[in-house]
């Protein structure tokens, strides 16, 4: 039961984050909203895994927690350099 409640309780939060993503006004706001939305999704997946008693779902949450980061880095790269190929950092 508790997981059902948690899952449903997560939706208003997701909805508000979505509202921010749609409203903008700047693209950074959208990125921020997408990021937050990503975190919500990770938690949602975990909760759903418990709700339906399928713990395998946690793998998906884990994968998503790892991958979500890359999108934001790509955004940074996009605005800071405007080009994905540019040599930006030295290794040291």
């Amino acid at each position, binding site marked *: 039961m508790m997981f*059902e409640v948690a*899952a*449903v309780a997560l*939706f208003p939060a*997701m*909805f508000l984050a*979505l509202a921010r*993503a*749609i409203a*903008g006004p700047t*693209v950074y706001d*959208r*990125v921020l*909203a*997408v990021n937050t*939305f*990503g975190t919500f*999704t990770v938690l*949602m*997946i975990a909760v*759903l895994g418990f709700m*339906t008693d*399928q713990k*395998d*779902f946690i*793998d*998906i949450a884990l*994968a*998503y927690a790892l*991958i*979500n980061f*890359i*999108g934001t880095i*790509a*955004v940074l790269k*996009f605005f800071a350099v*405007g*080009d*994905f190929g540019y040599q930006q950092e030295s290794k040291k």
Partner: protein
Amino acid sequence: MSTLIDLILLTLMAITAIAALQLKDLFGAVMLTGIYSLLSALWFLILDAADVSFTEAAVGAGISTVLMLGTLALTQRNEKSPSHPRILPLFVVTITGAILVYGTLDMPAFADPQAPIHTHVAPHYIEKSGEEIGIPNIVTSVLASYRGYDTLGETTVIFTACIGVLLLLGIGRRREDDES
């Protein structure tokens, strides 16, 4: 319960899709497409399609977004307003949608356990894969063995796309003489 979640998610998807398509700023549209794919991943999860959800999350969150941003970085970020109303497309879309809705009227109800797809072929996978293949994940059994040939095709598709992109863009340092 899951019906409720299912409906909420579908509604959110509809909102996201509309917002993504009416944005003139392509960057924002790409971001919203990311959310759309996340929502669909969640939705797949509600419908027990764990593998599909995994794929959609990985692709939608990582690869698609990065490739789209890469394209925007090389092209331009905003869309011009369409100069003329689009009657014909609207007409085509309405007709197509109407045909589909017509088609749904006879469909087996959502999640009907007596629907043909649950009584033919699939039961074999569910009941026999344990002894025939011997691995727990039925999706993997079907994907890699029963319908392994499709998956060979799928791998070939990725290979083809890779070759196609290389044929168009080339890899490595771009050379002036390489261009058409």
